[in-house]
Protein backbone atom coordinates (compact mmCIF):
# COMPACT_ATOMS: atom_id res chain seq x y z
CA UNK A 1 0.00 0.00 0.00
CA UNK A 2 1.43 3.36 -0.94
CA UNK A 3 1.73 6.17 1.52
CA UNK A 4 -1.02 8.14 -0.18
CA UNK A 5 -3.34 5.17 -0.20
CA UNK A 6 -2.81 4.75 3.50
CA UNK A 7 -3.43 8.44 4.00
CA UNK A 8 -6.64 8.11 2.02
CA UNK A 9 -7.77 5.21 4.15
CA UNK A 10 -6.90 7.19 7.27
CA UNK A 11 -8.90 10.10 6.00
CA UNK A 12 -12.02 8.06 5.44
CA UNK A 13 -11.81 6.50 8.87
CA UNK A 14 -11.35 9.94 10.38
CA UNK A 15 -14.10 11.47 8.30
CA UNK A 16 -16.56 8.70 9.06
CA UNK A 17 -15.83 8.99 12.77
CA UNK A 18 -16.11 12.77 12.74
CA UNK A 19 -19.33 12.72 10.76
CA UNK A 20 -20.84 10.08 13.03
CA UNK A 21 -19.78 12.08 16.04
CA UNK A 22 -21.28 15.23 14.53
CA UNK A 23 -17.95 17.01 14.97
CA UNK A 24 -17.73 18.33 11.45
CA UNK A 25 -20.17 19.05 8.68
CA UNK A 26 -19.48 19.51 5.01
CA UNK A 27 -22.38 21.72 3.94
CA UNK A 28 -21.23 22.22 0.37
CA UNK A 29 -20.93 18.51 -0.29
CA UNK A 30 -24.36 17.93 1.26
CA UNK A 31 -25.87 20.66 -0.91
CA UNK A 32 -24.26 19.34 -4.09
CA UNK A 33 -25.56 15.87 -3.38
CA UNK A 34 -29.06 17.08 -2.47
CA UNK A 35 -29.46 19.35 -5.50
CA UNK A 36 -26.91 18.94 -8.29
CA UNK A 37 -26.11 22.33 -9.89
CA UNK A 38 -28.18 23.01 -12.99
CA UNK A 39 -26.93 23.71 -16.48
CA UNK A 40 -23.66 21.83 -16.15
CA UNK A 41 -22.41 18.83 -18.11
CA UNK A 42 -22.32 15.68 -15.98
CA UNK A 43 -18.61 15.24 -16.49
CA UNK A 44 -15.72 17.55 -17.34
CA UNK A 45 -12.02 16.85 -17.59
CA UNK A 46 -9.55 19.41 -18.89
CA UNK A 47 -6.99 17.01 -20.27
CA UNK A 48 -5.05 19.82 -21.95
CA UNK A 49 -3.88 21.14 -18.55
CA UNK A 50 -0.28 19.89 -18.39
CA UNK A 51 1.16 18.27 -15.30
CA UNK A 52 4.31 19.53 -13.61
CA UNK A 53 5.77 17.34 -10.95
CA UNK A 54 6.84 19.14 -7.81
CA UNK A 55 9.99 18.69 -5.85
CA UNK A 56 9.87 19.15 -2.11
CA UNK A 57 8.07 22.33 -1.04
CA UNK A 58 7.53 23.47 -4.64
CA UNK A 59 3.81 22.88 -5.07
CA UNK A 60 3.35 26.65 -5.53
CA UNK A 61 5.53 26.91 -8.66
CA UNK A 62 4.29 23.53 -9.95
CA UNK A 63 0.57 24.33 -9.72
CA UNK A 64 1.16 27.80 -11.12
CA UNK A 65 3.06 26.32 -14.08
CA UNK A 66 0.03 24.10 -14.81
CA UNK A 67 -2.54 26.92 -14.92
CA UNK A 68 -0.26 29.41 -16.70
CA UNK A 69 0.49 26.92 -19.46
CA UNK A 70 -3.21 26.09 -19.68
CA UNK A 71 -3.82 29.83 -20.25
CA UNK A 72 -1.21 29.87 -23.02
CA UNK A 73 1.70 31.33 -21.05
CA UNK A 74 4.81 29.14 -21.22
CA UNK A 75 6.21 28.63 -17.71
CA UNK A 76 8.05 25.96 -15.76
CA UNK A 77 8.73 25.11 -12.13
CA UNK A 78 12.24 26.50 -12.64
CA UNK A 79 11.06 29.80 -14.10
CA UNK A 80 8.38 30.31 -11.44
CA UNK A 81 10.30 29.28 -8.33
CA UNK A 82 12.16 32.62 -8.11
CA UNK A 83 8.81 34.39 -8.50
CA UNK A 84 6.82 32.69 -5.74
CA UNK A 85 8.94 30.40 -3.55
CA UNK A 86 9.97 31.88 -0.22
CA UNK A 87 12.96 30.00 1.20
CA UNK A 88 12.43 31.23 4.76
CA UNK A 89 8.89 29.82 4.78
CA UNK A 90 9.61 26.77 2.63
CA UNK A 91 6.50 27.49 0.66
CA UNK A 92 4.61 30.03 -1.44
CA UNK A 93 2.23 32.72 -0.19
CA UNK A 94 -1.20 33.20 -1.77
CA UNK A 95 -0.52 36.87 -2.55
CA UNK A 96 2.62 35.93 -4.43
CA UNK A 97 0.82 33.24 -6.40
CA UNK A 98 -1.46 36.05 -7.55
CA UNK A 99 1.47 38.40 -8.16
CA UNK A 100 3.24 35.87 -10.39
CA UNK A 101 0.00 35.31 -12.33
CA UNK A 102 -0.09 39.06 -13.03
CA UNK A 103 3.57 39.07 -14.02
CA UNK A 104 2.63 36.53 -16.69
CA UNK A 105 0.11 39.07 -18.05
CA UNK A 106 -2.96 37.24 -16.72
CA UNK A 107 -5.73 38.37 -14.40
CA UNK A 108 -5.41 36.69 -10.98
CA UNK A 109 -9.01 36.16 -9.91
CA UNK A 110 -9.91 34.66 -6.51
CA UNK A 111 -12.88 32.39 -7.14
CA UNK A 112 -16.18 32.50 -5.25
CA UNK A 113 -15.38 30.03 -2.44
CA UNK A 114 -17.74 27.21 -3.37
CA UNK A 115 -17.49 23.78 -4.95
CA UNK A 116 -20.26 24.81 -7.32
CA UNK A 117 -18.29 27.84 -8.60
CA UNK A 118 -15.33 25.53 -9.11
CA UNK A 119 -17.51 23.24 -11.23
CA UNK A 120 -18.90 26.13 -13.29
CA UNK A 121 -15.41 27.37 -14.13
CA UNK A 122 -14.27 23.85 -15.02
CA UNK A 123 -17.28 23.52 -17.31
CA UNK A 124 -16.18 26.80 -18.95
CA UNK A 125 -12.71 25.32 -19.51
CA UNK A 126 -10.81 26.90 -16.63
CA UNK A 127 -8.70 24.94 -14.14
CA UNK A 128 -8.26 26.40 -10.64
CA UNK A 129 -5.50 26.31 -8.04
CA UNK A 130 -6.89 25.45 -4.59
CA UNK A 131 -5.18 25.94 -1.23
CA UNK A 132 -5.57 22.95 1.07
CA UNK A 133 -4.71 22.20 4.67
CA UNK A 134 -3.53 18.60 4.95
CA UNK A 135 -3.34 18.63 8.71
CA UNK A 136 -5.01 19.97 11.82
CA UNK A 137 -6.26 23.51 11.93
CA UNK A 138 -3.88 24.33 14.81
CA UNK A 139 -0.83 22.85 13.05
CA UNK A 140 -1.59 23.42 9.39
CA UNK A 141 0.33 21.91 6.50
CA UNK A 142 -0.59 24.01 3.48
CA UNK A 143 -0.59 22.59 0.00
CA UNK A 144 -1.63 23.78 -3.46
CA UNK A 145 -3.29 21.51 -6.01
CA UNK A 146 -4.95 22.07 -9.38
CA UNK A 147 -8.54 20.97 -9.96
CA UNK A 148 -8.99 19.97 -13.62
CA UNK A 149 -12.35 18.23 -13.71
CA UNK A 150 -15.35 16.69 -12.00
CA UNK A 151 -17.71 13.79 -12.40
CA UNK A 152 -21.19 14.36 -11.04
CA UNK A 153 -22.20 10.71 -11.31
CA UNK A 154 -19.25 9.59 -9.20
CA UNK A 155 -19.41 12.68 -6.98
CA UNK A 156 -15.72 13.34 -7.55
CA UNK A 157 -13.26 16.00 -8.57
CA UNK A 158 -10.24 15.32 -10.78
CA UNK A 159 -7.07 16.82 -9.37
CA UNK A 160 -3.38 17.19 -10.19
CA UNK A 161 -1.49 17.22 -6.89
CA UNK A 162 2.03 16.61 -5.64
CA UNK A 163 3.49 13.74 -7.62
CA UNK A 164 0.15 12.57 -9.03
CA UNK A 165 -0.77 13.78 -12.51
CA UNK A 166 -4.33 12.56 -12.11
CA UNK A 167 -6.23 11.76 -8.97
CA UNK A 168 -9.92 11.48 -8.14
CA UNK A 169 -11.11 13.04 -4.91
CA UNK A 170 -14.65 12.83 -3.57
CA UNK A 171 -16.53 16.09 -3.01
CA UNK A 172 -16.18 15.48 0.74
CA UNK A 173 -12.41 14.90 0.58
CA UNK A 174 -11.80 18.14 -1.33
CA UNK A 175 -14.17 20.19 0.84
CA UNK A 176 -12.61 18.83 4.02
CA UNK A 177 -9.06 19.73 2.95
CA UNK A 178 -10.19 23.02 1.42
CA UNK A 179 -12.19 24.51 4.28
CA UNK A 180 -9.32 25.82 6.45
CA UNK A 181 -8.14 28.13 3.67
CA UNK A 182 -11.60 29.69 3.53
CA UNK A 183 -12.13 27.68 0.32
CA UNK A 184 -9.47 29.73 -1.47
CA UNK A 185 -9.18 29.12 -5.20
CA UNK A 186 -7.38 31.06 -7.91
CA UNK A 187 -8.13 31.42 -11.61
CA UNK A 188 -5.56 32.68 -14.14
CA UNK A 189 -7.58 34.50 -16.80
CA UNK A 190 -6.44 35.51 -20.26
CA UNK A 191 -6.81 39.20 -21.18
CA UNK A 192 -10.44 39.89 -22.08
CA UNK A 193 -11.68 36.68 -20.46
CA UNK A 194 -14.58 36.95 -18.02
CA UNK A 195 -15.10 34.13 -15.49
CA UNK A 196 -18.39 32.24 -15.67
CA UNK A 197 -18.97 33.12 -12.03
CA UNK A 198 -17.58 36.68 -12.20
CA UNK A 199 -18.59 39.13 -9.48
CA UNK A 200 -18.46 42.76 -10.57
CA UNK A 201 -16.39 44.39 -7.82
CA UNK A 202 -13.98 41.49 -7.39
CA UNK A 203 -13.31 41.19 -11.10
CA UNK A 204 -12.77 44.97 -11.41
CA UNK A 205 -10.28 44.85 -8.53
CA UNK A 206 -8.47 41.89 -10.11
CA UNK A 207 -8.07 43.78 -13.40
CA UNK A 208 -6.93 46.96 -11.61
CA UNK A 209 -4.30 44.83 -9.83
CA UNK A 210 -3.02 43.64 -13.22
CA UNK A 211 -2.91 47.25 -14.44
CA UNK A 212 -0.91 48.31 -11.37
CA UNK A 213 1.51 45.43 -11.83
CA UNK A 214 2.34 46.82 -15.26
CA UNK A 215 0.14 44.74 -17.56
CA UNK A 216 -1.56 47.68 -19.22
CA UNK A 217 -2.32 46.24 -22.64
CA UNK A 218 -3.73 43.09 -21.04
CA UNK A 219 -5.70 45.10 -18.50
CA UNK A 220 -7.22 47.16 -21.32
CA UNK A 221 -8.77 44.04 -22.85
CA UNK A 222 -10.09 42.87 -19.52
CA UNK A 223 -11.55 46.29 -18.69
CA UNK A 224 -13.40 46.10 -21.99
CA UNK A 225 -14.73 42.65 -21.07
CA UNK A 226 -15.81 43.99 -17.67
CA UNK A 227 -17.61 46.93 -19.33
CA UNK A 228 -19.21 44.61 -21.85
CA UNK A 229 -20.95 42.91 -18.95
CA UNK A 230 -21.33 45.91 -16.58
CA UNK A 231 -21.25 49.05 -18.77
CA UNK A 232 -21.58 51.47 -15.84
CA UNK A 233 -18.78 50.06 -13.66
CA UNK A 234 -16.78 53.03 -12.36
CA UNK A 235 -13.53 51.16 -11.80
CA UNK A 236 -13.81 49.71 -15.30
CA UNK A 237 -14.42 53.06 -17.02
CA UNK A 238 -11.78 54.72 -14.92
CA UNK A 239 -9.24 51.97 -15.43
CA UNK A 240 -9.87 51.93 -19.18
CA UNK A 241 -9.30 55.70 -19.27
CA UNK A 242 -6.04 55.32 -17.37
CA UNK A 243 -4.63 52.49 -19.49
CA UNK A 244 -5.61 54.18 -22.76
CA UNK A 245 -3.79 57.27 -21.51
CA UNK A 246 -0.74 55.29 -20.49
CA UNK A 247 -0.73 53.55 -23.88
CA UNK A 248 -0.92 56.92 -25.64
CA UNK A 249 -4.48 56.91 -27.00
CA UNK A 250 -5.77 60.24 -25.71
CA UNK A 251 -9.06 60.16 -27.65
CA UNK A 252 -10.00 56.74 -26.26
CA UNK A 253 -8.90 57.84 -22.79
CA UNK A 254 -11.06 60.98 -22.92
CA UNK A 255 -14.01 58.94 -24.20
CA UNK A 256 -13.72 56.51 -21.27
CA UNK A 257 -13.50 59.29 -18.67
CA UNK A 258 -16.40 61.06 -20.37
CA UNK A 259 -18.48 57.92 -19.99
CA UNK A 260 -17.37 57.71 -16.35
CA UNK A 261 -18.57 61.26 -15.64
CA UNK A 262 -21.89 60.57 -17.33
CA UNK A 263 -22.49 57.32 -15.45
CA UNK A 264 -21.14 58.70 -12.15
CA UNK A 265 -21.79 62.46 -12.04
CA UNK A 266 -20.72 62.53 -8.38
CA UNK A 267 -17.23 61.16 -9.01
CA UNK A 268 -14.62 63.89 -8.55
CA UNK A 269 -11.74 61.69 -9.75
CA UNK A 270 -13.57 60.99 -13.04
CA UNK A 271 -13.94 64.73 -13.75
CA UNK A 272 -10.34 65.37 -12.68
CA UNK A 273 -8.95 62.79 -15.05
CA UNK A 274 -11.24 63.89 -17.87
CA UNK A 275 -10.01 67.47 -17.39
CA UNK A 276 -6.41 66.33 -17.44
CA UNK A 277 -6.79 64.37 -20.68
CA UNK A 278 -8.79 67.11 -22.41
CA UNK A 279 -6.03 69.56 -21.50
CA UNK A 280 -3.46 67.23 -23.04
CA UNK A 281 -5.56 67.23 -26.19
CA UNK A 282 -5.52 71.02 -26.20
CA UNK A 283 -9.26 71.29 -25.54
CA UNK A 284 -8.66 73.79 -22.77
CA UNK A 285 -12.14 75.31 -22.41
CA UNK A 286 -13.76 71.90 -21.95
CA UNK A 287 -10.89 70.88 -19.69
CA UNK A 288 -11.45 73.88 -17.45
CA UNK A 289 -15.16 73.12 -17.15
CA UNK A 290 -14.41 69.53 -16.12
CA UNK A 291 -11.73 70.63 -13.65
CA UNK A 292 -14.10 73.14 -12.06
CA UNK A 293 -16.64 70.38 -11.67
CA UNK A 294 -14.00 68.17 -10.01
CA UNK A 295 -13.12 70.95 -7.56
CA UNK A 296 -16.80 71.59 -6.82
CA UNK A 297 -17.33 67.90 -6.03
CA UNK A 298 -14.40 67.99 -3.62
CA UNK A 299 -13.85 64.83 -1.60
CA UNK A 300 -10.56 63.11 -0.82
CA UNK A 301 -9.05 63.95 -4.21
CA UNK A 302 -9.71 67.71 -3.91
CA UNK A 303 -6.00 68.49 -3.75
CA UNK A 304 -5.38 66.81 -7.12
CA UNK A 305 -8.42 68.56 -8.59
CA UNK A 306 -7.12 71.95 -7.48
CA UNK A 307 -3.74 71.22 -9.04
CA UNK A 308 -5.37 70.13 -12.30
CA UNK A 309 -7.45 73.31 -12.44
CA UNK A 310 -4.44 75.52 -11.72
CA UNK A 311 -2.36 73.94 -14.45
CA UNK A 312 -5.20 74.30 -16.96
CA UNK A 313 -5.71 77.94 -16.06
CA UNK A 314 -1.96 78.55 -16.45
CA UNK A 315 -2.02 76.89 -19.87
CA UNK A 316 -4.98 78.98 -20.94
CA UNK A 317 -3.20 82.17 -19.89
CA UNK A 318 -0.03 81.36 -21.81
CA UNK A 319 -1.81 80.09 -24.90
CA UNK A 320 -4.40 82.87 -24.80
CA UNK A 321 -7.26 80.43 -25.38
Amino acid at each position, binding site marked *: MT*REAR*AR*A*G*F*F*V*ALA*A*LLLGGCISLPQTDALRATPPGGLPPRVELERVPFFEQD*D*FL*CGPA*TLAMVLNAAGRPASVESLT*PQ*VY*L*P*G*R*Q*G*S*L*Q*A*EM*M*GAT*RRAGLVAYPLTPTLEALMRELAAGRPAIV*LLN*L*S*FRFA*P*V*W*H*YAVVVGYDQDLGKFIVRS*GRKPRDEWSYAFLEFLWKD*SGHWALLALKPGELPATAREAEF*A*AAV*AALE*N*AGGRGEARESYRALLGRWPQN*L*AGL*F*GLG*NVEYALGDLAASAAAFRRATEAHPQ*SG*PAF*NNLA*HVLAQQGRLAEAEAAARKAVALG*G*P*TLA*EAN*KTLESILAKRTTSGR
Partner: protein
Amino acid sequence: MTSSFARVLCRILIVCMIGLPFQVHAGLIGTDQVVTAEQALAARDMVNSVVSRADVASQLQALGLSPETARDRVAALTDGEVAKLAGQIQSLPAGADGAGLILLILIGVLIWWLVKK
Protein backbone atom coordinates in the same frame (compact mmCIF):
# COMPACT_ATOMS: atom_id res chain seq x y z
CA MET B 1 26.30 55.56 15.08
CA THR B 2 27.56 54.58 11.67
CA SER B 3 25.33 51.54 11.52
CA SER B 4 22.20 53.45 12.52
CA PHE B 5 23.00 56.01 9.87
CA ALA B 6 23.43 53.20 7.36
CA ARG B 7 20.10 51.75 8.41
CA VAL B 8 18.30 55.02 7.86
CA LEU B 9 20.01 55.48 4.52
CA CYS B 10 19.07 51.96 3.47
CA ARG B 11 15.45 52.55 4.39
CA ILE B 12 15.32 55.73 2.38
CA LEU B 13 16.92 54.02 -0.60
CA ILE B 14 14.49 51.12 -0.36
CA VAL B 15 11.55 53.53 -0.27
CA CYS B 16 12.90 55.32 -3.34
CA MET B 17 13.60 52.10 -5.20
CA ILE B 18 10.19 50.73 -4.48
CA GLY B 19 8.25 53.95 -4.74
CA LEU B 20 9.60 55.33 -7.97
CA PRO B 21 8.25 52.69 -10.35
CA PHE B 22 4.79 53.31 -8.92
CA GLN B 23 4.51 56.96 -9.77
CA VAL B 24 1.64 57.21 -12.21
CA HIS B 25 1.42 60.03 -14.70
CA ALA B 26 1.32 63.29 -12.81
CA GLY B 27 -2.17 64.72 -12.74
CA LEU B 28 -4.04 61.47 -13.27
CA ILE B 29 -5.60 59.72 -10.31
CA GLY B 30 -4.77 56.01 -10.29
CA THR B 31 -7.40 53.31 -10.78
CA ASP B 32 -6.58 51.72 -7.44
CA GLN B 33 -7.82 54.84 -5.70
CA VAL B 34 -11.25 54.37 -7.24
CA VAL B 35 -11.27 50.65 -6.57
CA THR B 36 -10.44 51.14 -2.91
CA ALA B 37 -13.67 51.34 -1.01
CA GLU B 38 -12.34 53.70 1.63
CA GLN B 39 -11.64 56.59 -0.68
CA ALA B 40 -11.35 59.02 2.21
CA LEU B 41 -8.14 57.27 3.12
CA ALA B 42 -6.73 57.23 -0.38
CA ALA B 43 -4.10 59.92 0.04
CA ARG B 44 -2.84 58.55 3.34
CA ASP B 45 -2.87 55.03 1.95
CA MET B 46 -0.59 56.11 -0.87
CA VAL B 47 2.11 57.11 1.63
CA ASN B 48 1.48 54.03 3.77
CA SER B 49 1.63 51.88 0.70
CA VAL B 50 5.13 53.02 -0.26
CA VAL B 51 6.38 52.50 3.30
CA SER B 52 4.76 49.08 3.72
CA ARG B 53 6.04 47.95 0.31
CA ALA B 54 9.55 48.75 1.52
CA ASP B 55 8.76 46.91 4.74
CA VAL B 56 7.48 43.80 3.00
CA ALA B 57 10.42 43.84 0.59
CA SER B 58 12.88 43.85 3.46
CA GLN B 59 10.95 41.06 5.21
CA LEU B 60 11.12 39.02 2.01
CA GLN B 61 14.86 39.63 1.92
CA ALA B 62 15.10 38.37 5.48
CA LEU B 63 13.35 35.20 4.28
CA GLY B 64 15.99 34.53 1.67
CA LEU B 65 15.33 36.68 -1.41
CA SER B 66 17.76 39.02 -3.12
CA PRO B 67 16.89 42.75 -3.03
CA GLU B 68 15.99 42.85 -6.76
CA THR B 69 13.82 39.74 -6.55
CA ALA B 70 12.06 41.07 -3.47
CA ARG B 71 11.37 44.38 -5.17
CA ASP B 72 10.02 42.77 -8.35
CA ARG B 73 7.79 40.45 -6.36
CA VAL B 74 6.37 43.23 -4.21
CA ALA B 75 5.70 45.25 -7.37
CA ALA B 76 3.23 42.60 -8.54
CA LEU B 77 1.09 42.91 -5.39
CA THR B 78 -1.81 45.23 -4.66
CA ASP B 79 -1.79 47.66 -1.74
CA GLY B 80 -4.24 45.44 0.08
CA GLU B 81 -2.07 42.38 -0.35
CA VAL B 82 1.00 44.29 0.79
CA ALA B 83 -0.85 45.55 3.87
CA LYS B 84 -1.91 42.01 4.70
CA LEU B 85 1.61 40.64 4.29
CA ALA B 86 3.26 43.46 6.22
CA GLY B 87 2.53 42.11 9.66
CA GLN B 88 1.85 38.46 9.00
CA ILE B 89 4.43 37.16 6.58
CA GLN B 90 5.47 34.51 9.09
CA SER B 91 1.96 33.27 9.87
CA LEU B 92 0.06 33.42 6.57
CA PRO B 93 -0.42 30.11 4.75
CA ALA B 94 2.55 29.13 2.60
CA GLY B 95 1.57 26.21 0.41
CA ALA B 96 4.30 23.63 0.37
CA ASP B 97 4.46 19.92 0.77
CA GLY B 98 2.21 17.06 -0.21
CA ALA B 99 3.94 14.74 2.23
CA GLY B 100 1.85 16.24 5.01
CA LEU B 101 -0.84 13.78 3.96
CA ILE B 102 0.91 11.42 6.34
CA LEU B 103 -0.55 13.42 9.21
CA LEU B 104 -4.02 12.42 8.10
CA ILE B 105 -3.16 8.88 8.97
CA LEU B 106 -2.39 10.02 12.48
CA ILE B 107 -5.77 11.74 12.69
CA GLY B 108 -7.42 8.58 11.46
CA VAL B 109 -5.64 6.38 13.95
CA LEU B 110 -6.33 8.79 16.77
CA ILE B 111 -10.05 9.03 16.02
CA TRP B 112 -10.34 5.28 15.47
CA TRP B 113 -8.69 4.69 18.83
CA LEU B 114 -10.95 7.22 20.58
CA VAL B 115 -14.10 5.77 19.03
CA LYS B 116 -13.16 2.19 19.83
CA LYS B 117 -12.40 3.07 23.41
